């Protein structure tokens, strides 16, 4: 066992030396994701706030069962910008609906609290009466909107605008209807007093401007733990992951150099296990991955504010983030080992590796968040290791999830690593 660890240490030492000497390779590995994260974040910061074209799914919990819920439902449906997913307000509790949004199952949850319609109708009924008190909407007239902490500001603004328009229309329709009735009564009274030289009747038009239904915007997670969702909070982990997976190319190259020279033959005639050599190699490259992530986090934290962007924050989630980074690094290394086993030349590995990573990154939500993709693509996205990594990062950074809560994604990343290692081992064995 001592020998085994000694071989791992020797292999790690050698790999670290080789990596340190490969200055051009390291420059690409560190410079490329750093440049990407800066440029893409700067570009997306505005675009994401302006866009909102995608038809979004909204979780709709009707605890009111009155005309507000019915009209809001109809209004949102008519807008054709959203798809409503109805929950039965009689059986599903508010907490459950919020939990589904917090988990990221849905990006938005709209809750119409019980009695909203009754209170609004009662309020409007007296609104245009001569003795009506001017007042603000009570708490009962709030329509609650919960957002997945992972959604970006542009999406949030779009949904809020749609909801505000819908509630405004409903409220205005009810007010106008009440006003019509009130006008008829007032006109009848005016006719009776005709010739009396009385003053013009007060129609109570100022009440039209009163806001009786208020959209209350909430985040579905615990506020203490969440970071404000922004392009920065999305892009730092996304592009860090993207760069991290590119380490598979030099790793594959290192394996190919050894295999295509006499080194592998020499190593295989030595009294050592190829597993210890591989572990040593992987440790070296995991070190590179961590250095990459650290660089990008530092850029996000210190450089971004100087460029007018919000600073990237980890909110004290260091341990889960290190665990995720380790799992992602292992997944990237597993892919590198597979590339090194399948490809026959460095050119092949570079070409195949870079194209496959860009595709996997696009599928995984690095370029466009998965919730903004068409349904089919969202399902395919679930098979991308970058999606597992990104989802785990966002769960921790934006939703404050614990390691246990992201264990599914972590297990998938580790399984990906192990399966690829096994395939590589089988391929090497077969080629021998």
């Amino acid at each position, binding site marked *: 066992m001592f020998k085994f660890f000694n071989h791992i240490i020797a292999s790690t030492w050698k790999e670290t030396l080789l990596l340190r000497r490969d200055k051009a390779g390291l420059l690409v590995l560190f410079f490329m994701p750093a440049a990407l994260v800066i440029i893409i974040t700067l570009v997306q910061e505005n675009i994401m706030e302006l866009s909102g074209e995608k038809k979004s799914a909204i979780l709709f919990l009707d605890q009111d069962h009155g005309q507000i819920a019915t009209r809001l439902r109809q209004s949102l449906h008519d807008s054709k910008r959203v798809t409503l997913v109805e929950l039965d307000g009689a059986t599903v509790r508010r907490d459950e609906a919020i939990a589904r949004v917090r988990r990221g199952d849905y990006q938005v949850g709209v809750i119409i609290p019980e009695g909203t319609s009754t209170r609004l109708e009662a309020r409007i009924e007296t609104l245009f009466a001569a003795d009506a008190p001017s007042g603000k909407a009570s708490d009962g007239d709030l329509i609650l909107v919960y957002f997945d902490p992972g959604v970006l500001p542009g999406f949030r603004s779009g949904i809020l605008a749609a909801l505000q328009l819908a509630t405004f229309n409903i409220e205005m329709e009810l007010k106008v209807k009440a006003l019509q009735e009130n006008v008829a009564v007032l006109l009848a009274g005016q006719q009776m007093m005709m010739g009396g030289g009385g003053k013009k009747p007060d129609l109570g038009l100022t009440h039209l401007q009163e806001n009786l239904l208020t959209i209350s915007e909430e985040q579905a997670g615990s506020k203490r733990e969440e970071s404000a969702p922004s392009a920065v909070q999305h892009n730092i982990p996304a592009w860090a992951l993207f760069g991290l997976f590119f380490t598979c190319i030099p790793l594959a190259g290192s394996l190919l150099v050894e295999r295509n*020279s006499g080194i592998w033959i020499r190593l295989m*005639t030595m009294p050592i296990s190829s597993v210890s050599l591989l572990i040593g190699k992987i440790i070296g490259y995991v070190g590179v991955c961590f250095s990459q992530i650290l660089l990008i986090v530092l850029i996000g934290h210190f450089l971004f504010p100087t460029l007018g962007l919000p600073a990237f924050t980890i909110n004290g989630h260091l341990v889960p983030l290190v665990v995720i980074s380790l799992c992602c690094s292992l997944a990237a290394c597993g892919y590198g080992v597979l590339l090194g086993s399948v490809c026959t030349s460095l050119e092949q590995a570079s070409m195949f590796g870079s194209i496959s990573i860009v595709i996997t990154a696009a599928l995984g939500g690095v370029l466009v968040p998965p919730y903004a993709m068409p349904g089919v693509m969202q399902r395919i996205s679930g098979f991308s290791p970058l999606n597992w990594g990104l989802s785990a990062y966002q769960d921790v950074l934006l939703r404050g999830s614990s390691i246990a809560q992201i264990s599914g994604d972590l297990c998938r990343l580790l399984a990906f690593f192990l399966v690829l290692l096994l395939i590589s081992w089988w391929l090497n064995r077969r080629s021998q």
Partner: protein
Amino acid sequence: MLDLKKQGKFPDNESFQWCHESMSAVASHSDRARSATIAIEVDSLVKIYKNATDPALNNFSLSVEGGSFFGLLGPNGAGKTTALSIITGLLAPDSGSVTILGLRLDRHLRQIQTKIGLVPQDLALYENLTATENLVFFGRLYGLAGRELQTEIDRCLEFTQLQEQRNRRVSTFSGGMKRRLNLSAGMLYQPDILFLDEPTVGIDAQSRQLIHERLTDLNRQGTTLIYTTHYMEEAQELCSHVGIIDDGRIIQQGRTMDLTRQQGFNNLNDLFFSITGKKLRDV
């Protein structure tokens, strides 16, 4: 082997030849004596590669005496690399057996690997590491550390006259220097048997001469050398014994001088062509 050498159980080449002749003369003791001095015993190896019509090795048998300088000669595609790969444990045969220093290869691979060294034809070096760093890495894999490792590295670098260049990266080395360092890496841990696959390909005359001298020294110190080459003059000069392989089996095997004389040739080159012919072997 280290111990055997230190105990003087492996004589130098000349003594060994004398010893071998004596043993041959005493027929009744020959089997026991041979088993004590046979370094490599290969019995009826067969290897057929997938999708190949002809076997790469076809009942390949070979016996290499301990302390000999054995040249494995053959045209391209004759089966030299396959034979070497199987004997060094890189490749599994379809049938047949290999015994190295009295240990069956299929049962004692790890143990055998501590007793053999390999100098592959392709350079087995990390170009971006210095000469010393390369040797430190390979030495550590042999379990060497600290002062012992340093002493061994110094010995190997001195042996191949690379002490001055020890801290230079391999990428800055000439072809001859790389070949010498390749040999140094194979000599670490002082293997009992050193396999050399065309170790002088493409280098200048001076480096070749130095490698020849060093290999002869190494052999005198008791190391069994298995040497493949396409240069017949080289084999004639260096090898005490040769085996000529063609079509996957050994055609001729014996002491270099005896073989050429017995067949009535002046040199190994003529013998080689008489056995393998002059037809080009494009594989």
